[in-house]
C-alpha cells in the first residue's frame, strides 16, 4: 500500500492541518493528542471533507487533487471508514447494517464473504438483533465488519478502542490483529494509545497541532523520539533533565539527579551539554540484586515507590537518584515481591538511554 499526501492544507479552528507524507505500512498509526487534526486527516482520505489544497493518491490512483479539481466521490474511493462514534444506522438491524455496503458495490472479485467476516469477528449471534441492543464491544465489531464487507482497499479506523474500558480493549484488540493478518487490508489507525500502536501498527505518523512531528517505524519513533514534544506524546515514561559529563569511545556519560548513566553517542550537536534523558519503561530490567557480572552498562540501586496496574502490565515507579519507571508482567512483579519500600537493582542497556538535546 502506498498512500501519498502532498500539500495538504486545511484550516481548522486553532491551527491549519498541513501534511506532506507518504505512508507505506500495512498498519500505520496516526498518533497524536486529541485535537491534533487526526480525524480531519481521515475525513480527507475518505473524501468527506474538502481541503483548501490537497493531493492524495492511493496506490497510484489520484483521489483528490485540488489543482486539477479532481475529487473522487466517497462512494467510489473503495475506502472503509469506522468513525469514532461508529455511526451504526439506528433504524436498521445488524444484518441490514452489515449488508448496506455489501449490496451496492457490485464487484464480483470479493475478498470478503459475509459468512467469513461474520465468523471471524464472532458476530453470528448478533445478526438478527437491533443495533440499539448491542453492547459497546459488539457495536465495535459490527462497525468493523460493515466496513470490511465493502472489500475496501484501505481501512480507516478512528480511535476504535477509545470508548472501551481496559478489559474490553484487550478483548477487541485480537479481532483487529485477526483482520490485519487474515485480510491484509492496509489500515490507517488513529489513536493516542501506545499499547494499541505497539501491538498493531508497523509504521506511525506523529501528528501535533496539524503538523507531522515525526514518521517512521513504530520502534524507531517510540525509542528515538525526534524531540521533546514527540517524546512527551509517545509517552516515554522517564524523561529527565541531565548533563553530559564525558564523551569517550562512542559512549556518553550523563549525570542525572544523583546518578550517572551511560548512553551511546547519538551524534549530538557539539556543545550540547544539557540533554533530556528518555528511557522507555519496557527497557528497564529489574533484579533483586546484581552481583553477577552482566552486559547492561547501567546498574542502578533503587527503591520501589509505587506499584500500579497499566493494562496487562504492572508499572513500577522507582527512585534511583532520579525517578525511573519500569513496566513488568504481573508474574515478574510477584516473583520479585515488589512493593513500596523494597530495594531492587534496575538495569538499562546503554542503547536504551536516549538523549535529546535540551
Amino acid at each position: 500500500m502506498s498512500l501519498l499526501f502532498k500539500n495538504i492544507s486545511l484550516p481548522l479552528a486553532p491551527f491549519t492541518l498541513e501534511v506532506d507524507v507518504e505512508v507505506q505500512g500495512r498498519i500505520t498509526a496516526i498518533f497524536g493528542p486529541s485535537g491534533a487534526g487526526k480525524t480531519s486527516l481521515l475525513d480527507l482520505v475518505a473524501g468527506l471533507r474538502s481541503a483548501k489544497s490537497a493531493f492524495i493518491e492511493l496506490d497510484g490512483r489520484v483521489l483528490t487533487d485540488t489543482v486539477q479539481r479532481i475529487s473522487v466521490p466517497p462512494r467510489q474511493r473503495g475506502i472503509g471508514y469506522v468513525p469514532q462514534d461508529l455511526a451504526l444506522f439506528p433504524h436498521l438491524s445488524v444484518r441490514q447494517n452489515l449488508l448496506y455496503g455489501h449490496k451496492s458495490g457490485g464487484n464480483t472479485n470479493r475478498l470478503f464473504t459475509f459468512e467469513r467476516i461474520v465468523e471471524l469477528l464472532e458476530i453470528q449471534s448478533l445478526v438478527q438483533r437491533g443495533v440499539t441492543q448491542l453492547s459497546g464491544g459488539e457495536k465495535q465489531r459490527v462497525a468493523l465488519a460493515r466496513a470490511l464487507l465493502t472489500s475496501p482497499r484501505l481501512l480507516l479506523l478512528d480511535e476504535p478502542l477509545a470508548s472501551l474500558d481496559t478489559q474490553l480493549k484487550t478483548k477487541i484488540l485480537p479481532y483487529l490483529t485477526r483482520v490485519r493478518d487474515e485480510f491484509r487490508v492496509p489500515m490507517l489507525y488513529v489513536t493516542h494509545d501506545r499499547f494499541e500502536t505497539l501491538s498493531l501498527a508497523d509504521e506511525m505518523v506523529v501528528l501535533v497541532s496539524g503538523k507531522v512531528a515525526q514518521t517512521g517505524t513504530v520502534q524507531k519513533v517510540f525509542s528515538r523520539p525526534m524531540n521533546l514534544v514527540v517524546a512527551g506524546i509517545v509517552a516515554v515514561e522517564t524523561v529527565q533533565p541531565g548533563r553530559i559529563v564525558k564523551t569517550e569511545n562512542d559512549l556518553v556519560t550523563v549525570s542525572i539527579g544523583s546518578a550517572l548513566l551511560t548512553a551511546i553517542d547519538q551524534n549530538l550537536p557539539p556543545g550540547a551539554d544539557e540533554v533530556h534523558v528518555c528511557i522507555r519503561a519496557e527497557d528497564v530490567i529489574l533484579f533483586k540484586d546484581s552481583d553477577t557480572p552482566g552486559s547492561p552498562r547501567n546498574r542502578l540501586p533503587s527503591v520501589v515507590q509505587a506499584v500500579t496496574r497499566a493494562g496487562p502490565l504492572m508499572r513500577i515507579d522507582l527512585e534511583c537518584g532520579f525517578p525511573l519507571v519500569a513496566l513488568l508482567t504481573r508474574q515478574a512483579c510477584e516473583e520479585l515481591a515488589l512493593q513500596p519500600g523494597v530495594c531492587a537493582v534496575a538495569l538499562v542497556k546503554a542503547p536504551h538511554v536516549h538523549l535529546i538535546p535540551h
Partner: protein
Amino acid sequence: MSIEEWQIVWFTAWVSALSTIIILPFGLGAAWMLARYDWPGKSVVETFISLPLVMPPVATGLILLKLLGRRGAVGGFLHNNFEFDIVFTWRGVLIALGIMSFPLFVRSARVAFEEINPRLEQIARTLGAGNFRVLCTITLPLASRGIVGGMLLAFARALGEFGATIMVAGNIPGQTSTLSLAIFQSVQLGQDANAFRLLGVSVVLAFAAVWWSEWLMRHRKH
C-alpha cells in the same frame, strides 16, 4: 347531522389533507435547505416562511386576495390567459390552508433533519451509497417521525383555519364552506344546535390529529 353538514365535514377534511400533501415536497425542500446549508438571505427566507404563523390570518388572507384576485398580479394573469379563477373557489380554500400550515410543517421537518447525525450519511457514502440512496435509506427514514408529525400538525392547523380562508374563498355554501366558517355562520344565524354539532366533529378531528402527532414525537427516539 344533515347531508349538508356531512358535506361540510367531508369537504373540510379532504381539502385539509390535500393542502398538506401539496405542501409536503415544498416544505421538505425548504426544511432541508434551512437545516443543512448556510446561504445568503437565509434568515430573511426563514422569517418569511414563519410570517403566516405570527401575522393575523386575516392579514395573510388579504395579501393572498390581492395577489390571487382577478385584478391581482397572479390571479389576473391566470384569469386572462387560462380563464382560471382561484379566489372564491375551493382552490382558494386549498391555497389559504396550505399557506397557513406551511410554517408548522417546515419547523417540524427542519428539527427532524437537524437531529440526524451527519456522520450517518457520510458513512453511508463511504459504504457505496449515492446521494439518492442516502436520502431514501438514511435521511428520510430517520426523519420520518418528525416529518409525519409535522404533516399531522399542518393538517390540524388546516382543519381549523378561518381568517385567511374567509378572505380568499368567502363562505359559499356547498363550495367553499369549511367547518370553522360553518360554525361561525351558524352562531351568527342563532342556530346554536347546528354549531354545537359541528363543534363536536371538529374537536374529535383535531384531537385525533394532534394526539397522533404527539405520540409520534414521543416515540421519536429509536
